[in-house]
């Protein structure tokens, strides 16, 4: 009983309260699509969303091919999946050089999501050759020390920091012309050629740079995570950073770079982290970093740090994109049709209820009650998750929920059948519930374990719709186990004390007459119980209606021998059974239940 109350509080009241608080503090509205609401968020196929048409911005002829488009689709899909927006639909439109990418996202995407899908996220590390803190265009050479452009060009660079080789008069001129105050120059784009110097701005427009050739490419980054910086003392700072981890080759390159730059004259002891043509940060090398871990701090916010980490994790886009149009689209599934389908599913559910009442009589009400409780918890969980992590229910999810009815009801069926088995063995209800539970529990846990394993694996390995399905499956499995353990079983224990069930009323679904009528049963102390006439008619009827009367019955009970194998009780029971059966047909015979 205490468990029941506790379950009610933990599984229903608490989520409901959380949701209620959520709807008050962070209500879902037009302007806040990710807020809390009592209705779960729906996915693109059920609710519609926003369709973006992305046009590639080629920076070189022949850059846009069907291969680059499909690469870009793959990268965008991974980024979108990882950002928690469930089940975006990404496809190409048109072919060849005029191909576009159509991205449909549920709800209305915010600025960070747009940036996620359209920016290439090409990151590279370059040494700083010249840094000027005067970001405006200089009419004449600035105070920044620069090697004389008139000097003869060396044939080979001595190192990537070789300013004399890389800063050609053209580079110097470009640097002088660059005006980083103009936002147009800070829009970003593609990174310059890897083998040459690159002139660009800081992303905030505070300084401008001449950078050496690429030392480490973005593809050497194996993972990127975002978080608050951790301080020397072990505390957590207030600045958002992105932590990078390089692969083996990248680790070596990074160690070499930091070693070479260490102790050079400023500003050439800095390396610049360049993202999409802009310098995010240009830290000074203070130590050699041999372990391949780098942290980037720039003026990140929580969202922009997370976006960047997401982008870096899945590689860069081969081209950058421009949003050509952004339009609302309606659900792809006819809403009318969906309603009809769900109505039909509801009819099926009513049939399930009728069937359980028919099969388990009053006990069927416990099945229905448990299903309703499981349904309520599932609904709350989905509403809560769609607020907290942007989960959205799609058609695949709905299918998962419908099949979950079967899985969930099966837990109760397994449990009830085990209780009935125990009753058939002649236990009283309390004992049967007790033993039946121990046996059913094991089966239920093993079978649910399989479901949970499948859900977890599919969730982590698959993408798109399959992921949504796996999530629903896992969620319903966990809820199902919780309901059986903390609702159905405690309630069963309670009702096993109610006289209606305990004494096995005819309509309780647990009546001994219905469950034990199959013959003579030894009840101890040399006495037998059970009708001797009833089973005959029962068996005859059953035999007539059974689909396949391949009944094995074993013919006559022992007549002569076998004293050593049967107990006295069994022999007497057999004798009585035989007497009752005398004259009945031999084939579909009666076998006395054995004494256990």
């Amino acid at each position, binding site marked *: 009983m205490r468990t029941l109350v506790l379950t009610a509080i933990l599984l229903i009241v608490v989520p409901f309260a959380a949701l209620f608080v959520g709807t008050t503090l962070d209500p879902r509205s037009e302007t806040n699509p990710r807020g809390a609401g009592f209705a779960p968020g729906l996915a693109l196929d059920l609710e519609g969303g926003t369709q973006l048409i992305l046009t590639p911005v080629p920076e070189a002829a022949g850059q846009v091919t069907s291969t680059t488009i499909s690469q870009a*689709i793959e990268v965008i899909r991974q980024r979108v999946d990882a950002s928690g927006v469930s089940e975006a639909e990404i496809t190409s*439109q*048109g072919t060849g050089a005029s191909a576009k990418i159509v991205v449909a996202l549920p709800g209305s995407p915010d600025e960070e999501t747009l940036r996620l899908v359209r920016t290439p996220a090409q990151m590279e590390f370059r040494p700083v050759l010249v840094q000027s803190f005067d970001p405006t265009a200089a009419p004449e050479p600035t105070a920044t020390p620069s090697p004389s452009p008139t000097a003869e060009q060396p044939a080979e660079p001595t190192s990537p920091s070789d300013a004399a080789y890389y800063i050609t008069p053209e580079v110097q001129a470009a640097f002088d012309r660059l005006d980083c105050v103009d936002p147009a120059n800070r829009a970003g784009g593609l990174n310059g050629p890897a083998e040459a110097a690159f002139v660009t701005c800081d992303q905030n427009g505070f300084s401008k740079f001449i950078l050496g050739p690429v030392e480490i490419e973005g593809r050497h980054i194996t993972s990127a995570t975002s978080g608050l910086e951790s301080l020397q003392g072990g505390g957590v700072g207030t600045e958002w950073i992105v932590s990078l981890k390089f692969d083996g080759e990248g680790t070596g390159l990074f160690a070499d770079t930091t070693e070479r730059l260490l102790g050079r004259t400023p500003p050439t002891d800095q390396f610049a982290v360049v993202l999409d043509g802009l310098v995010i940060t240009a830290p000074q090398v203070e130590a050699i970093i041999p372990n391949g871990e780098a942290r980037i701090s720039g003026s990140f916010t929580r969202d922009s740090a997370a976006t960047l980490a997401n982008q870096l994790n899945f590689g860069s886009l081969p081209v950058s994109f421009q949003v050509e149009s952004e339009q*609302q689209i*309606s659900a792809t*599934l*006819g809403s009318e*049709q969906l309603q*009809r*389908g769900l109505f*039909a*599913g509801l009819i*099926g559910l009513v*049939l*399930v209820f009728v*069937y359980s009442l028919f099969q388990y009589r009053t006990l069927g009400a416990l099945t229905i009650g448990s299903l309703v409780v499981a349904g309520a918890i599932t609904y709350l969980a989905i509403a809560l998750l769609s607020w907290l992590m942007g989960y959205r229910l799609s*058609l695949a999810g709905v*299918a998962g929920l*419908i*099949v979950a009815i*079967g899985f969930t009801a*099966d837990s109760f*069926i397994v449990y009830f059948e085990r209780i009935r*088995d125990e009753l058939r063995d002649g236990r009283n209800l309390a004992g049967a519930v007790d033993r039946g539970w121990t*046996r059913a529990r*094991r*089966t239920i846990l093993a079978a649910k374990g*399989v*479901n949970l*394993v499948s859900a977890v694996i*599919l969730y982590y*390995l*698959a*993408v798109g*719709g*399959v992921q949504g*399905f796996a999530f629903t*499956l896992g969620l319903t499995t966990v809820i199902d186990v919780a309901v059986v353990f903390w609702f159905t079983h405690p309630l069963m224990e309670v009702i096993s004390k109610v006289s209606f069930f305990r004494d096995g009323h005819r309509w309780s679904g647990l009546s001994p007459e*219905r*469950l*034990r*009528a*199959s*013959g003579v049963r030894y009840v101890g102390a040399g006495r037998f119980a059970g009708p001797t006439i009833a089973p005959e008619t*029962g*068996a005859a*009827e059953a035999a007539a209606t*059974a689909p*396949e009367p391949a*009944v094995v*019955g*074993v013919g*006559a*009970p022992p007549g002569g*021998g*076998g004293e050593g*194998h049967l107990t006295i009780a069994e022999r007497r029971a057999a004798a009585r059974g035989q007497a009752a059966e005398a004259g009945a047909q031999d084939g579909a015979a009666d*076998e006395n239940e*054995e004494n*256990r």
Partner: protein
Amino acid sequence: MALNFAQWGNDLYTGRRSYQIVAHRSRWFTAVGALAIIALAILLSRGFNLGIDFRGGSEFTVSGVQDTSQGPAITAVQSISPDEVPRVSVVGQNAIRVQTSEFTNTEDVQRVRDALAGAYGVDPGEVTTAFIGPTWGAGVSQRALWGTVVFVLVVAVFMALYFRAWRMSLAAIIAMLGDILIAAGVYAAVGWEVTPSTIIGFLTILGYSLYDKVVVFDKVRENTAGVLDQSRSTYAERANLAVNQTLVRSVNTGVVAILPVAGILFVGAFLLGAGTLRDISLSLFVGIAAGTASSIFLATPLEVSLREREPRIAKHTAKVIASRQAAAASGEDVAVHATAAAGSQLMPGQHRGQQAQPRRKGR
């Protein structure tokens, strides 16, 4: 009837009534084999009718429409290509986007354009067409396939460890593959378009099938726990008893799982015309039916066949049969042995210690 069903359950439980499912296993193997071959033949000859999500298709955009209801577009497309189930959505305020599988000849494209323009009362010039690529590309399929393979392997290991018998796990996996094959065959035979929903339906079947097998096998495990310690019944007989004892559960679960799906398939898809749900409900319907049946008729008999190759079980079976024959030869208690074989199992008694005491609760 209800009384009879309960009675039937009782008889199955006590072994008074027993279907010789395991003994007749060659019959089931032949039937499943035949079905599998038919399914395979259908799959190879007809193949799947892959939908727009996998192959890409044509997209028509009707601009400047007054009425944005979806019905006219569906009727218009179906007047040209009757089997097509187009996906219609409203883009922006006054545009309709219609996606269909690809029309290869330009005449058809022109006719669909005209039909759409007519349906919405706009000039044919307002209808633009484009080829669209697949939303479910090769990458997605690959990830899904990879996930499924890993999942099946992990579940196989899980079952082998749980039941402490790799043969049980193998039997379950083979039976599950059979279910998928049959469901896929039926789907291909019906010829409906394969959509992402279909794939998800198949994945659901995979999970359901394995789940159902674990439940049935758990009963087999329970019944055969001490089989080697006695000589009255063989492993096969115990396993058969287990199948019979879970028969009521299997029927009930099967019915409960299939009713909502059947509701969607028959009432929803056929009577009310909810075409968009028919793909997933068909794959689920066939799969759940096949999964429930195969737990009884394929998985357990297969498991018995495999387990009987295990040396100690083979030896035990031989011993039981020999002792029975010896008993028969000497004209003794054949019936007693047979009783034990068909009837419920005998468990040796044991001292239960304090377990025999009433439990105190609620403290």
